[in-house]
């Protein structure tokens, strides 16, 4: 069980850093500062962060920034990186045109 309010008190208030403008999610253009600030707004999981800021929601689906976001969030939460669970993986693993999917009837060609 995580007591969000207590955890927020433990980590203290958001303090701006010089490198807050640094881009983390290249696809959706989300910065380090935005991620750090969101933690102080109660966003503690990658699942929530993706939904809140759209990091990892773009074309590459977080394949590039996932690890970076995890470590930024963990540092802000004053925890080790494994405290923050990675985003769950979903099909399709690569972007696919709808018309290609649309032809699929569940089988394979000989």
């Amino acid at each position, binding site marked *: 069980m995580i007591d969000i309010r207590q955890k927020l008190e433990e980590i203290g208030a958001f303090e701006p850093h010089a490198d807050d403008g640094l*881009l983390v999610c*290249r*696809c*959706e*253009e989300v910065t380090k500062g935005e991620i750090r600030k969101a933690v102080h707004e109660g966003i503690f999981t990658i699942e929530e962060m993706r939904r809140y800021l759209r990091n990892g929601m*773009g*074309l*590459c689906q977080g*394949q*590039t920034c996932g690890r970076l976001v995890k470590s930024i969030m963990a540092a802000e939460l004053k925890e080790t990186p494994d405290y923050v669970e990675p985003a769950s993986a979903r099909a399709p693993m*690569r*972007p696919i045109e709808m018309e290609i999917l649309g032809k699929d009837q569940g089988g394979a060609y000989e």
Partner: protein
Amino acid sequence: MGRIENHPILGASPEGKLVTFYYNGKPMEGMEGEPIMAALKVNGVMVHRYTAKTHEPRGVFCAIGRCTDCVMVVDGKPNIRTCITPLKAGMKVETQYGVSAKEA
């Protein structure tokens, strides 16, 4: 940036067929079947697109189709990963602004 004509380990580059493609309307040459990215790089093109939110320039980053930073408008279709899409004769390759070929 150029091609590696003769490599100490890999030897001479494989012979390919030189074809013409169009980069923002300008004719350029590249090897048929090589990734569009390779042909652009040989022609000195570094910027593939400008991002939607902050209009930053982007180019090749991972070169294996994962990061999707190198996407361009190819034959009218946006978001084509140029690092893994083979070059064909006559292809129209355009700088992508956000998700379209025109500057917003």
